[in-house]
């Protein structure tokens, strides 16, 4: 086990543990905080995959902006534990869902084992800002712009909903 795999397993276990924390902790603020830890460990994993730019952008947008808004909302509402109503899912449903997800993971592992499936090799400057920008603004410019328009539409819709008078 070299240093690289130690780093990988540490980050991966941090990511998984904190992701479990997000859904199992009762206090919504702790939940949001563990989500931040998840995002950080994922950013660390991106760095080990030679995608430093993606890692930094992940921290900048998710941890730096979106999660701040999450915590902002949680603080504003200031929920207490007794106000959180438990939603009833039947235990059979939960069992079935977890079985299904386990099956999906196993299937994924099986597919990756098939030797015929070849992954394309990465270019030398993979993950750098230059190559990413070149991809975004040449071959994938239309999906990129459509995503931008979609986000704008969502933003306008949110503002419209917020401004509507509820009588």
């Amino acid at each position, binding site marked *: 086990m070299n240093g690289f795999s130690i780093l990988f397993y540490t980050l991966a276990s941090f990511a998984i543990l904190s992701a479990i924390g997000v859904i199992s902790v009762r206090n919504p603020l702790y939940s949001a905080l563990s989500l*931040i830890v998840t995002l950080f460990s994922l950013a660390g994993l991106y760095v080990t995959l030679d995608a430093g730019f993606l890692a*930094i952008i992940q921290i900048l947008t998710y941890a730096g902006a979106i999660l701040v808004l999450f915590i902002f909302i949680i*603080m504003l509402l200031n929920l207490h534990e007794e106000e959180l109503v438990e939603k009833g899912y039947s235990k059979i449903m939960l069992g079935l869902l977890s079985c299904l997800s386990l099956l999906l993971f196993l299937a994924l592992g099986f597919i990756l084992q098939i030797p015929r499936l070849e992954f394309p090799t990465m270019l030398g400057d993979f993950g750098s800002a230059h190559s990413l920008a070149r991809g975004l603004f040449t071959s994938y410019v239309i999906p990129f712009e459509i995503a931008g328009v979609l986000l704008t539409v969502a933003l306008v819709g949110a503002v419209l909903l917020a401004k509507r008078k509820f009588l």
Partner: protein
Amino acid sequence: MLIILLKILVPFLIIMQILPILIWLERKGAAYIQDRRGPNRASILGIRLGGLVHSLSDVVKLINKEDIFPNHANRFIYTLAPFIVMAVASITFAVIPWGAPLELNGKIFTLQAADINVGLLYILAIGSLGVYGIMLAGWGSNNKYSLLGGLRSSAQIISYELTLALAVVGVLIFAGSFELNAIVENQGANVWKWNVIRQPVAALLFIVSAFAETNRLPFDLPEAEAELVAGYHVEYSSLKFALFMMSEYVNMVIASALMVSLFFGGWQVPFLSTELLRAHAGSILYYALFVFGFLSILAGIALFRKKHLVTYRDLRDKETKVLGVPAVLAGIGIIIFQLIHGPYLFEATGSQITTAFFQVGAFLLKVLFFCWVFIWVRWTLPRFRYDQLMRLGWRVMLPLALVNVVVTAGIYLIL
């Protein structure tokens, strides 16, 4: 390994040494702006250094204070918050370049702790995390003033972060890289090519949003003492409060270092490029030491002849003599040493190290100047109202930053 450790430790220690000086500068600056004398009482054996000793007594005081936990505060989050603020503030300095890379024995040593190719984005990303500490402090203290401070801080930092990031885009277009060292080298030693001349609007926007990001007046709404007592850190005492206070000044140093690196030529000595400095390192050092010795003599004489308004009848009366005489002697000593040894001639290694000293010195002087600008503005301008702050951020600065990006890109394409 040792070099990496040094690279991490030395900048951190330098910043920690700047902090007491900044606190002293803030108090003295505030005093003179408000026509007062400022701190001048604390002394060690009569040595007061114009109030600098007060910073030392502050540390002793803060360590000895009782560490209070407010009732019903969330203990874990309450304790975590100051550590987040301080840790975030101090790891940001890893990518700031202090001087041109050295080439010793065929190896290249960069004068920055981590030479990563997304340096600028790293600073923006890590810098945006500092708000968590403030928010958690506000929430964890279980105090309405703290909570309001935390909420204000989060909204303010998110609003001004956009302008901060967009203002930098113009600089990135010129440099073509996220590396801070590349940005500094791209500006060159010629003052007329620095980014503050090429990108004046971006420089102004960056400085204003840096003030907002560091929660300094006129944007210090999270701790506005007139309405929120002290905002997010009202419940903190002892060393936890000290951490908040230190992180405010560390953030100030980082914001200044960023301004200097992005818009004011970073480590470049004005009009003296790295090549020129390296070629004439010996003679430049020779003349610089002459000037230094001369200034030291002048300062010593000025101290010695200073009239006392009050006599204390103790050791403090002799302070100016005790400081003035050695200054004069040191100045004379330096000049005599210079005259005996004549102009210096350096080998390649020596000239590079001398150059590095000059560049680090230039960088530190510029950073200190911008820290002084922070203090100067704080004691000159009144605080914004919250709606004015938001209107300025979203309706004035953000559109200006966007226009600046488009115009810069257009000009760059045409040229």
